[in-house]
């Protein structure tokens, strides 16, 4: 193992069984084999088994930050557990240099009837700290968790945010060399989230190595410089974080478009089959129909409806969500257009115009609904059903939008 390498994963595979009964059966046979000193052959798949991780290799040097991204069930958490040594791989080997701290389960072993103070000792010990070590950083843990007088109250009286804060504080103070974090940076309120980011960045500055599992590309781009994209247990891409995240986001978009031949990808709910939204078309500043826009350019969506009866005081809504399902635009027609005395029937369309669509590069999905009288009386609903893209540009932004910003001094 090279001097600087702290984690070395060589051709690691891990298999699981979906059926509980089979899992029990395979577990029993493996145990009986072990009983007689026979090494179970872990390299072949038995009936009902699948590779949760398949031939994964990578290494990480001291002080580096690696993000593991991928869909649900792609093997991210399994990989973290293997590195943490919770269970062994079925093939390959894992080498880890130094003490691992896992932010997989915050508040491991907390007893609800014990006070926060008592639980710090308990959880700290479970995480491998000695009594003296805990004593030395006890005040830091309490300061960081910032839960006030609650520290002397039983944990069962805490809000869920408070117990996560305490749990996180204990884990982050256990002074690991390598930190494994599974979706935890999103805990608590904004102030606490910032504190966590600061703490993790301090940890990195002091030579700590980070492996972060997250679904938030924003967070991943901020916290790590490398990324590993897992797909069905295999490495699909690995490399610099922005490259891999871009590819991942594009893939998600493509997959959406390929899934269905039409432009329709989300869900369509019709409460009244006489009144439906038939399609949405997008237009640029030259009034050409398109699905690709430049950031900041003119954007127009034309929502086509077909009503076999007349709809009194119609309200249209239009929303745009990014690939992470964050709603970036949401607007109701009644904000600016009073249709309360209007009736619509037959075929027609309504237009939504956004003069400057300051979104960052990426793929977006639109939601639109038609309601009658009030927004709650929905007649027809297309949830994230229409797609468009903001063309890639060289500008790097971390926010969800790319609003023009100037700096002056």
């Amino acid at each position, binding site marked *: 193992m090279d001097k600087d390498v702290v984690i070395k994963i060589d051709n690691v595979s891990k298999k699981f069984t979906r059926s509980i009964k089979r*899992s*029990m059966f395979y577990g029993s046979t493996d145990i009986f084999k072990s009983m007689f000193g026979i090494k179970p052959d872990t390299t072949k798949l038995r009936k009902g088994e699948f590779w949760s991780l398949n031939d994964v290799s990578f290494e990480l040097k001291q002080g580096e930050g690696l993000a593991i991204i991928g869909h649900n069930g792609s093997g991210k958490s399994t990989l973290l557990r293997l590195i943490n*040594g*919770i269970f*062994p791989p079925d093939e390959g080997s894992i080498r880890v240099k130094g003490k691992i701290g896992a932010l*997989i*389960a915050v508040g491991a072993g907390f007893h609800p009837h014990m006070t926060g103070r008592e639980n710090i000792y308990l959880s700290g*010990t479970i995480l491998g700290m000695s009594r003296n070590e805990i004593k030395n950083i006890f005040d830091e843990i309490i300061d960081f968790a910032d839960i006030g007088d609650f520290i002397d109250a039983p944990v069962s009286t805490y809000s869920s945010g408070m117990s996560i804060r305490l749990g996180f504080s204990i884990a982050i103070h256990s002074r690991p060399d390598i930190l494994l974090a599974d979706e935890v940076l999103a805990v608590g309120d904004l102030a606490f989230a910032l504190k966590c980011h600061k703490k993790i960045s301090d940890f990195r500055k002091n030579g700590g190595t980070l492996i972060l599992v997250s679904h938030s590309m924003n967070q991943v781009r901020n916290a790590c410089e490398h990324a590993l994209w897992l797909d069905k247990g295999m490495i699909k891409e690995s490399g610099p974080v922005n490259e891999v995240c871009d590819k991942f986001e594009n893939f998600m978009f493509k997959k959406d478009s390929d899934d269905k031949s039409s432009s329709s990808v989300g869900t369509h709910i019709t409460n009244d089959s006489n009144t439906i939204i038939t399609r949405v078309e997008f237009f640029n500043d030259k009034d050409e129909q398109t699905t690709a826009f430049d950031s900041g350019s003119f954007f127009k969506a034309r929502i086509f409806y077909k009503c076999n009866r007349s709809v009194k005081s119609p309200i249209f809504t239009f929303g745009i969500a990014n690939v992470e399902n964050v709603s970036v635009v949401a607007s109701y027609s009644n904000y600016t257009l009073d249709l309360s005395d209007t009736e619509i029937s037959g075929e027609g369309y309504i237009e939504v115009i956004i003069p400057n669509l300051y979104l960052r590069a990426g793929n977006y999905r639109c939601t639109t609904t038609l309601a009658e009288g009030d927004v709650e009386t929905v007649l027809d609903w297309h949830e994230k059903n229409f797609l468009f893209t903001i063309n890639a540009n060289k500008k790097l932004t971390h926010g969800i939008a790319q609003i023009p910003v100037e700096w002056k001094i």
Partner: protein
Amino acid sequence: MNKEVTVYEPNQRLKIGFFETWVIMFKNIVKSKELIIQLFKRDFFMSYKKSYLGLAWILISPLVGIVSWVFLNSAGILQPGDTPIPFPAYVLLGSSIWGLFMGFYGSAGGTLGAGAGFINQVKYPHEALLIKQTAQHIANFLITFAVNIIVLLLFGVTPSLGILLFPLTAIPLFFLGAGLGLIVSVLSVVASDLTNVINIIMGFVFYAIPIVYQIDKIENPLLQTVVQINPLTYLVTGARDIIVEGTIHYPERYLLVAAISFVFFMLSWRLFYVSEDKVIERMI
């Protein structure tokens, strides 16, 4: 940077030398001293936190149990035999020792279960759980046992000085009980039926030990054979006789069974170590 390198490979624990596993497990226990203390505190004291009487329950349960023995004693239902001490006292001691054994079995059987909740999320030596479970059981037992002895004294029954050797006779009971429990602990993860089967068997085993009767009063030859080949006969009666009379009636057989129990425990402990790896991923 000279940090320790940890390696994880398939079937890693099976590749460890036979005797080396014991060394590793023993070291793990020594290393987890503080963890054991913390978990013991959590589970022993916290189980009574939500009750008004709190730890007093540890005393109340055996006291109430004894009332029934006192009743049976006064009602003369338990036939007095030629036992060295009044028969109810004899039965009380015997069943208390049986309880000690079953407790060892039960607490070892709950080894992996006791860590459920974080066994899947944090890496720590699970041997610590066995010790914590056992310590918890011993703490409970000692209190119950002390109450029993006080009651016996009040009824005019004086234990022999051999009672000082009683802790020694508890050791083979631990080996046999915990040995059985550790196997159950692992196997019950993949086949919870096993726990039920063993519990049913244990119900019969109780009657195959001279606890509620005397060994030389058995007339049925079949039962006689069963009682004689039952290893627990010697471990339980040995522990009881050392308290009552200060001697062990079948010392050779006792020592043989004790030795077998030790070997059995060591084997089952190793089995636990090599196979827990295979079941933890199935505990999710």
